[in-house]
């Protein structure tokens, strides 16, 4: 397993609140990686550190061996795209305008709007299935449509690396699976995708690599079939469960043993 994007011994803090003390992670190249863990376990914080939104107090994040803090902002953004959890759009912005904002790292003051920009925007909207929404105002869209617009914006950035923080959160179940299929396709095209996912079963079905976190530390990482079992789910989520083969894909599937009677 090779890894261009790696974190070594990170100490991560928001002010006085310590999230992680010695966090190390290697993002496997060309794979779809899912980060799972309970709420507030430091998944988003780790992602923020990987995209320079949070400066580690100790340790370094490197891309191709270079400390990402020293890489020029636009150059880094041409390699790594990030979609935060709840981005907010300015008033009165149209879908195609918002998607076009993904081209920012490829533009300079006098470069204007190029054929490559247009092609990337058109392609991203098609991939996210929002071509017919192009002229709509973002504020008038439903939560699910809006989420796909943001995904398109990140796609228009045309980066080899794509990091997404809970991209399925506001989507209905159909659109959740459509998005996950899209992420798999991107992986097949050779991109590296890292997504924080809530649903462990979706993570097991779609991801090549799973990183399980708890209390700001990585508990286990590896292929879903190798690491996801009842003991891990108990340790990470404190949830009693059975792990059975997914009837569709054969990947691990978590079936909680909690029923109506056992929740006190």
């Amino acid at each position: 397993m090779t890894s261009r994007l790696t974190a070594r011994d990170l100490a991560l803090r928001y002010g006085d609140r310590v999230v992680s003390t010695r966090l190390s992670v290697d993002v496997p190249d060309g794979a779809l990686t899912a980060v799972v863990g309970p709420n507030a376990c430091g998944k988003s914080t780790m992602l923020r550190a990987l995209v320079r939104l949070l400066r580690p107090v100790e340790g370094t994040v490197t891309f191709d061996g270079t400390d990402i803090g020293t890489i020029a902002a636009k150059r880094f953004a041409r390699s790594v795209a990030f979609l935060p959890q709840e981005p907010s759009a300015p008033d009165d912005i149209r879908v195609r305008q918002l998607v076009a904002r993904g081209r920012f790292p490829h533009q300079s003051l006098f470069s204007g709007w190029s054929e490559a920009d247009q092609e990337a925007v058109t392609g991203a909207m098609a991939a996210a299935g929002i071509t017919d929404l192009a002229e709509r105002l973002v504020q008038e869209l439903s939560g699910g449509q809006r989420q796909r617009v943001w995904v398109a914006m990140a796609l228009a950035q045309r980066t080899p690396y794509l990091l997404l923080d809970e991209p399925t959160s506001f989507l209905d179940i159909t659109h959740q699976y459509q998005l996950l299929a899209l992420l798999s396709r991107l992986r097949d095209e050779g991109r590296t995708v890292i997504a924080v996912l809530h649903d462990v079963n979706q993570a097991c079905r779609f991801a090549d690599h799973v990183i399980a976190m708890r209390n700001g530390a990585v508990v286990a990482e590896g292929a879903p079939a190798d690491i996801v079992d009842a003991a891990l789910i108990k340790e990470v989520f404190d949830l009693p469960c059975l792990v059975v083969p997914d009837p569709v894909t054969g990947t691990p599937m978590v079936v909680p043993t909690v029923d109506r009677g056992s929740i006190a």
Partner: protein
Amino acid sequence: MSATGTALVLRRGRFSALVERRTLVFTAVMLVLLLALGLTALCYGDGWTSPARVFAALSGQRGGPNVMIREWQLPRVLAAVVFGAALGTAGAVFQNVTRNPLGSPDVIGLDAGAYTGALVAITVLSGTPARLTAGSVLGGLVAAALVYLLAMRGGVSGLRLIVIGIAVNAMLTAVNSWIVLRAELEVAIAAVGWSAGSLNGLGWEQVRIPFCVIAVLLAALVTRAPALHQAALGTEVAVGTGVRTESLQVQLVVIGVGCTATVTAAAGPIVFVALAAPQIGRRLARTSGIGLLPAALTGAVLLQSADLIAQLLLSPVSLPVGVVTTAIGGCYLIWLLSKEVRSG
């Protein structure tokens, strides 16, 4: 030129740009309006003259009234346009940085701070125009730092910064009154006349330095405009797409304060333009987020209109333009405050 939906792709040689149709129409209309207002203002001096005479004067013909038009009306009209554009732009910058339509330099005390700086420059340092400008910019920056530091404690939220800014504004206004009361009579009279914000008596001598400073600041702002618009997507997306938000914010605050303070040094604190121009411009041009160009154009039109009203209302007495903008701005501010408080 080709069209995709409501956007146009303009090509010139190898360069091409994506422009919204509505922005083009808006810009053209505002420019025509500005020319018409400017010409009207040039026609009005002690009394009305014909546009033909104005053109003759501008083309360099000699003669008494022509000199009046060139030496008195022209710098005043240009001042209204340039200062209006500078104030509108400064407002757009601050409303973008604070992400709040109330986050305008005149509301959060930066005009008052610039005026304090200018007053200190006059009363203590016997202000030359350059010292006045420097004192004004310094005062504005100190006020900005004060608001920022006070708002920092316990996290910066949009409305918190605004409320603290309004308090700082009130405090600084009190300080300004105190300085004027303590000053010698002649200085005090000059300071009070100027405190409302006025373009009366501005000649080439007074506007030369401010025009140069504003030109430099606006040029610096143009190079940062794409990043400013990108930052409107929020810190996370902006950083993710390669904007260095922290240094950008500092640069924008310095440019914004520079614009406001330069205008304040030359014409006194002219309120309302910075507050209203970005919002009016945004609604008219229907840009996504608060655009700089619509704000600049709207600011220029607003200040030129206000100055015409100020000259004509109690003619032949010429009111300070700040009185007019305050009167209109007060109503707008009340409306905006009630709307903001309701929406939380």
